[in-house]
């Protein structure tokens, strides 16, 4: 088997499974902080109940995120030794910073949030809930810095040196801040965070709707749903705005990627937006294309005669796999639209005080729960596949980045191990979540008794 393909399959498998969990904890973390803040402000025990219940859901999810995250940090060294040697001078620092500045903070205060309720003051508990959300959000920053540098390298120079008679190239840091705030860091970070928030808020909205439909703890979940609807609307709108900005940056810094996202082969002004189509890598064209004329030019440059570079401008060996990039990007976009629609309808109903009266709407909300998860996943697929064939854009090819020391059979064995283990973890996660919903929130009486 092809060792490069195996290494890529393993990375895709482990990162995509891992990425189910952190976005949800970022989103839930801030919602829990909001509940704790409201409780702190007005002492309404309902908010205490909300915080308590969603913290339980948070805990089940968080631990799988942590456990599967270790795999990611090891993987650069285990499977991508060539990459590690090439980028270590730049890429390692954000990973270390993530540990020092974010993980320690998050894990310490999580201990208090989960097990320390009775041991600290109410204020300290509230503060811990803030720190947990902040820690999760900050860890995303450092890992996005690392990823963005792969996409749009900056603040470096490539040096060639002789190591034991072998010529070796590597990237060396020349400006720390330029590398950290490279051209795609902030556009990507804002989109990643808002995207992550959608997972948490739509999870609360959708699972609450599902519980109401089932007739379980309806009072509690009605309240829960009411708290989620405005955040859903605000967050998905923001995601789309910053996503649009992120698109501008891609057009500017990674034109081959943009061309693949939009399925544009010829360099042209008035570039059309393809809503549907099957890009054909070999034939350099699209089949069954349904297009809106001029829209890509308009969206990228604000006017129809903006020139968009086409894929044919790049040699075939430098083009990303167009069909995967196109479809993952478009699916993300359509799923975002769907979320916006659900949130918009919700706000209308909410303004008319009828949010909870439409069973069809409740069903749609419940059906929407997996959508933000999937949108986050395919968004990353678009970002990473769109960067191909480069692992560091225009500097290092993916095929040159793997660990030459590791036999393909061992990689295959570990893929099998991860597949089994992660399938089991996924099943357990769903099982425990369902179990938690079945148990429902603790009663207000017992929470108040505990407080005294």
């Amino acid at each position: 088997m092809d060792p490069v393909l195996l290494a890529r399959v393993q990375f895709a498998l482990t990162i995509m499974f891992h990425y189910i969990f952190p976005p949800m904890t970022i989103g839930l973390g801030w919602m829990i902080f909001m509940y704790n803040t409201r409780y702190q402000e007005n002492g309404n025990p309902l908010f205490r109940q909300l915080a308590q219940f969603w913290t339980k859901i948070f805990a089940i999810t968080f631990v799988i995120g942590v456990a599967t995250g270790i795999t990611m940090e090891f993987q650069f060294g285990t499977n991508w030794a060539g990459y590690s040697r090439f980028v270590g001078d730049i890429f390692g620092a954000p990973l270390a910073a993530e540990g020092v500045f974010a993980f320690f903070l998050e894990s310490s205060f999580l201990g208090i949030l989960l097990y320390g309720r009775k041991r600290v003051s109410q204020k300290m508990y509230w503060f811990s809930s803030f720190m947990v959300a902040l820690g999760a959000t900050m860890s995303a920053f450092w890992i996005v810095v690392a990823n963005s540098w792969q996409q749009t390298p900056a603040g470096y120079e490539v040096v060639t040196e002789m190591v034991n008679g072998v010529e070796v190239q590597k990237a060396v840091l020349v400006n720390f801040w330029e590398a950290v705030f490279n051209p795609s860091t902030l556009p990507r970070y804002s989109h990643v965070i808002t995207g992550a928030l959608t997972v948490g808020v739509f999870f609360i909205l959708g699972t609450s709707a599902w519980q109401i439909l089932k007739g379980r703890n309806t009072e509690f979940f009605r309240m829960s749903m009411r708290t989620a609807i405005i955040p859903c609307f605000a967050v998905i709108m923001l995601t789309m705005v910053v996503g649009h900005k992120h698109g501008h940056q891609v057009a500017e810094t990674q034109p081959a990627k943009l061309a693949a996202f939009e399925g544009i082969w010829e360099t042209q002004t008035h570039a059309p937006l393809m809503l549907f189509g099957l890009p054909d890598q070999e034939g350099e064209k699209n089949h069954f294309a349904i297009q809106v004329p001029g829209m890509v030019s308009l969206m990228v440059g604000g006017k129809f005669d903006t020139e968009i570079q086409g894929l044919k401008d790049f040699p075939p060996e430098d083009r990303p796999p167009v069909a995967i990039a196109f479809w993952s990007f478009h699916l993300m976009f359509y799923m975002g639209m769907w979320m916006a629609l659900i949130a918009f309808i919700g706000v209308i109903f909410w303004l008319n005080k009828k949010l909870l009266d439409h069973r069809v709407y409740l069903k749609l909300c419940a059906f929407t729960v997996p959508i933000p998860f999937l949108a986050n996943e395919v968004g990353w697929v678009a970002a990473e596949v769109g960067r191909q064939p480069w692992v560091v854009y225009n500097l290092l090819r993916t095929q040159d980045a793997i660990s030459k020391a590791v036999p393909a059979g061992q990689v295959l064995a570990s893929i099998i191990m991860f597949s089994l283990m992660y399938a089991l973890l996924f099943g357990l996660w769903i099982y425990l979540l369902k179990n938690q919903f079945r148990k429902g929130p603790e009663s207000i009486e017992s929470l108040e008794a505990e407080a005294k």
Partner: protein
Amino acid sequence: MEALQITWFLLIGILIIGYAILDGFDLGVGFWHLFAKKKGERTAFIHSIEPFWDGNEVWLLTAGGALFAAFPPVYATVFSGFYLAMMLVLLGLIFRAVGIEFRNKIENEKWVKAWDIAFSFGSILPTVLYGVAIGNVLQGLELNAIGDYTGGFFALLNPFALFCGIVGLTMFAHHGALYLSMKLDGDIAQNAQKWAQKAWYAFLFTLMPTLAYGVKFCISGDYRFLPMIFIVLTLVVNSASFMFNKKGKAQAAFIASSVTIACLMLAVATALFPNVVPCTNNPEWGLTVFNSSSSQLTLLSMLIIALIGMPIVLGYTVFIHRVFKDKVKVDNK
């Protein structure tokens, strides 16, 4: 530049020592989890580490990140060279993490039992493998010119490395038992005190032959004096730990055990220095502190990050241990 390189060698050493001391106790608790007879005792074991294990594991993540940043070729060589072992470490760490959090979520005999087993084996497996890895690095690896490991998987399972693995297990078992005796109340705390005594003998009896053979790595190094001092310190402080434990001073014994771990790791580090990964087939190809570090700017930037961050980290660690300073109650069922 040399000062920076040495500083980073030491800082990574400190991160690894921090990991060994902190996660060492909860890995050790995982070992004793097998030996606790009552379900209530095992629950108390989990409670004793619940608020801490995640933070403890962050030391490993940070050490890994720092190694990647400061000595990229070392990170690449070791992690890809020990591929299967690393995958098994991950298997263990993932199951024990999930086990700690999931075990008490559902009241069902089989569920609890399954997670008890996952937690214990998920603790023992990485513990042994860490030792094996250190044993192999001390002896040196077979490398090619760019630093890829060429020795094959079974060469890693040599007697000295396996002995180091057992030393790791007995050392953490001792450390974990002391933690339990310090952290729990009543009969089980006394039990743990006895476990610690047994583990101490086991640690000593496995450490001595390993040291007897390992001395050759100390005297073949560039700095013969330092590792020998640390070995002597290890033995002295370790004896103190035994004495404290015998007198029932659990906290003092635990601190002594922590210092023992630190001294032993420092002995390894100084025996290696300036090598980080010696090469057996061609000494010229070995990775050293000086030929495999990142650039001056990276090391400097990282140093600033560490100087800002690490005091805060120590603050969190002290804070969380103060919040959860009470002894854990055991439900005797």
